[in-house]
């Protein structure tokens, strides 16, 4: 598995376990809107940020805890990778 696939898989599992118990995993794709279709509310978004910071050992700025960076798994992978490269 390439590194972006590994990130995507970990994020997907976290979202399924934490926010979508009972959901068929195939329904959650890289492009499923998370914040705009109410999978993640504001507390959920903060929990996701805490998970990303701990799991991938990165730090996110306040403005990145936002729909612009976190609305899909694809967006999240991009954000995590950019942080890892910068770090």
């Amino acid at each position: 598995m390439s590194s972006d696939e590994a990130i995507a898989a970990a994020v997907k599992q976290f979202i399924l376990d934490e926010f979508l118990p009972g959901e068929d995993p195939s329904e959650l794709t890289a492009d499923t809107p998370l914040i705009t279709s109410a999978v993640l509310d504001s507390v959920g978004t903060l929990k996701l940020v805490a998970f990303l910071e701990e799991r991938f050992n990165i730090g996110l700025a306040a403005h990145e805890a936002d729909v612009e960076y976190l609305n899909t798994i694809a967006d999240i992978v991009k954000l995590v990778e950019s942080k890892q490269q910068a770090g």
Partner: protein
Amino acid sequence: MSQATVLCQLLDAQAAQRPQHVAVEDPASGGAISYAELKRASDRLRDRLVHLGVRRGDRAGVYLTKSIDAVASIFGILKTGAAYVPVDPHAPVSRNAFVLANCAVKAAIVEQAQADALRQELTNLGHLPPLLVLDGAGDGRPLEAALSREQASDPAAPSDTVIGDADDLAYLLYTSGSTGKPKGVMLSQQNAMSFVAWCSETFEPRSDDRFSAHAPFHFDLSILDIYVPIKHGATLVLVGHETGKEPAKLASLMAERRITVWYSTPSILSLLAHYGSLASYDYSRLRMVLFAGEVFPIKHLRLLKEQVPHPRYFNLYGPTETNVCTFYEIPKTIAPDRADPYPIGKTCSHLESRVVDGAGNDVRPGEEGELCICGPGVTSGYWGLDELTRNAYLDTADGKQWYRTGDLVVAEAGDGYVYRGRRDRMVKKRGYRVELGEIEACLYQHPGVRQVAVIAIDDEDEGLRVKAFVSPNEGQKLSIIALKRFCSERIPLYMVPDVFSFAPALPVTSTDKIDYQALKEMA
């Protein structure tokens, strides 16, 4: 100042007294507006609205992001003698169109981004009033620009500010309705003015105060946010929608903007306490923290007070129909063994209260019953819903009308009332009123749903979680993501269920009604 009787007089009085003082700051756009400029902008809008046909006794809609433009629009509408109807700029357009058509607004002020969709939806509903379209909403310039544009092509003559009666409607606030459609709570000038007067007496605002405006304008917390600082010549600091949900940004905004009086729901204060790194900021100017809209779990309040101990903390309670009707000042120290939330407290001085049983008789002291409120702060009812209005009150032999809050309370000696729960299926989610029936009505529109029941579950961390039990149509497999998306297109995000559970059939009672008690036990 001679005694003001209507809201718009509060602005004009301060514009005369301290014209250059900043009335509103909007950190999101970097804008600020003085009392004199706010008066001028609202006067110009008044002239335009009168030109468009808005008159005393009418309604006009405000469909704008929280901004200086939105504050000026509210005062502009009030100056025509009409009532303003603020809608949630982040709710689905179809829901907002329903609201604006339901109370037959004579005009609406809307941002370009929503204008086409709104026009379409209003046309579908057969009620398309004139729309004043702004390029955006922020520092006040979009409203100025729109008014100048209109003035150049279709000049409006100057008109006078209308000072109506205390009984005139000032605004309509739409809240969740159990039948699946929002309902409009009608609030008069006197309802608002008597509440604002109580705030003056209780919080003693000063012209050097800087109030936060965290709540959206379609939410009743905004009445304190807007009119109390304006009445006292203080400054209102708008907290944008996005910033408002992000504790890190919020924590720094509170310090940078030197907020002296903060007002929000406990949910937001809990987020701040947990994620705001509050100890790293200087909040020495903060003198009061007010919260309302839901129960504040004690562990979160304790965490907040540990980090920011010096301000006075108040628990304010009241439904939209009465605005704040009871209040309780949190003691300086929270006892280490305290686990129960604080009381909702004593009745505000401008209102009267009583606690009744199911038959409408006063309960004995110490017994649980429904809290009922009477006085100048209480709504006259719901727009266009006569039966619902009649059922909302308890009439007593002395001719008084008591609004039945639906909240069950117990009177405790010394502390006032303690909140015990609800009589019906309304819950508070992050301070918003949510009728579980409205969520069910939304899910029933989904073609794959055969039966649905929605319940609320107490949650120690989040206060409350909403769970939907869904029984799909035969042979249908439903996706939770798809159902959440379906809901998010029809109802506000805070109403979308947090958790879904599927079952071939829902449990029923002996009379074949959905057995909510059994569902609660399953949850």
